[in-house]
């Protein structure tokens, strides 16, 4: 547990000092929202609003992949990853600490993106804000848990950040399907049934447990 907090603190502090990840992710998702607006015919209409939840998640996924890819790049600079590998704890805690840090940074970017989205698509999200935060948090936990795990793998390959989306895709699809369904329900009806939420919880739990167990192998040299 100490190790988890130590890693979380370190990652957040490093990010605060350089801010390069958060800024890149934010710029990227803002860019995406603008591009969506221009590429969809007619701007904000009832038809395009039907696509809004899906597009929002597209922006979220790409922002996540960008940030996750970079989260291990700092560890490789001076082989700091060895210090993590040698920590006298289950390596799962180290990865979990990084996952939470990634989740928090992503969360910040997602909040800002959602606001811009609401503006561009002329939607009022305030009535569903709380539920939306819940759904996005659950979905993002799925994205970050499996994403951090595979980032540790991807960063040690020759394709580095390009390998991450490839590895993560089959694991992102269930999250996307459920989260997008839940978000659509929220936007259209103002409430969401328990089914997709339950499924997201199951996915998150599976991903977290599996990455905890397998983390030992991933942090070996």
């Amino acid at each position, binding site marked *: 547990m*100490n*190790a988890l*907090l*130590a*890693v979380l*603190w*370190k990652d957040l*502090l*490093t990010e605060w*000092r*350089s801010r390069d990840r958060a800024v890149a992710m934010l710029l990227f998702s803002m860019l995406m929202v603008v591009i969506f607006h221009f590429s969809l015919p007619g701007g904000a209409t009832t038809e395009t609003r039907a696509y809004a939840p899906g597009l929002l998640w597209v922006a979220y996924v790409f922002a996540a992949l960008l940030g996750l890819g970079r989260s291990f790049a*700092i560890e490789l*600079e*001076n*082989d*700091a990853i*060895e*210090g*993590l*590998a*040698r*920590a*006298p*704890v*289950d390596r799962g805690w180290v990865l979990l600490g990084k996952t939470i840090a990634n989740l928090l940074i992503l969360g910040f970017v997602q909040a800002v993106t959602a606001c811009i989205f609401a503006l561009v698509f002329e939607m009022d999200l305030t009535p569903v804000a709380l539920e939306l935060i819940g759904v996005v948090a659950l979905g993002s936990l799925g994205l970050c848990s499996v994403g951090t795990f595979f980032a540790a793998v991807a960063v040690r390959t020759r394709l580095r950040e390009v390998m991450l989306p490839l590895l993560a895709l089959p694991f992102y699809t269930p999250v996307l399907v459920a989260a997008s369904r839940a978000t659509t329900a929220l936007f259209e009806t103002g409430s969401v049934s328990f089914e997709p939420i339950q499924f997201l919880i199951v996915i998150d739990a599976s991903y977290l447990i599996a990455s905890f167990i397998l983390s030992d192998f991933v942090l*070996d*040299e």
Partner: protein
Amino acid sequence: MTAVIARELEKRFGSTIGLDRIDLEIPTGSTMAILGPNGAGKSTLLRLIAGLARPSSGSLEVGGESAHHRTARARVGFIGHATGLYPELTARENLIFAARLRGVANPGARAEEQLAEAGLTRAADRRTGGFSRGMAQRLSIAVGLIDEPEIVLLDEPFTGLDRTASDRLVERLMGLRQSDRTLVLVSHDVTLAARLADAAVVLRRGRIAHRESGDRLDPTTLEDAYSAASERDVA
């Protein structure tokens, strides 16, 4: 009690053999020097003891536990080739992080101690990204020793150090020796190794080509063994 026991230790990288059935014992409180040319397996051996990789076969025990296990990793400090520092964090923060990660009781206080010991107190709040090579190396050693480990592994720690820093490091190592720690030192400097160590092995192509131990190691025999290990095979 033996700090490190290797039996039939083997490490393969695909079809290449990095370590070829090594048998080695390092008694607690002793200092072992590992010598040999590049590619002989010195770093591989050290990294296995540090728990950074698993053996392909054979056994490697550190303090009675398998080296890769987290309880064994808790006893071992490792100072490798790279500094392991985070450039965006200050010297102090790097030390505090390492202390927290390794479960040190009073991270802040311990960090101050190590900063003083490494002569980096004035640079404590500077980001390590701007450190000179020597400063980075000194800090990296401080980080490696932050939890006062029983067993200290050093992979060519004198690289990049100037005369003053070198002398300071030798003093530090002697101090560690006196406090009953086990040291394992990889070095190219045979004379220094002979001076510091109680025992030495010379590796050649993954095997132990020469062993020596005793009160006073003879640098000449070690030098000869090293040279012999460095010779290429005559076809």
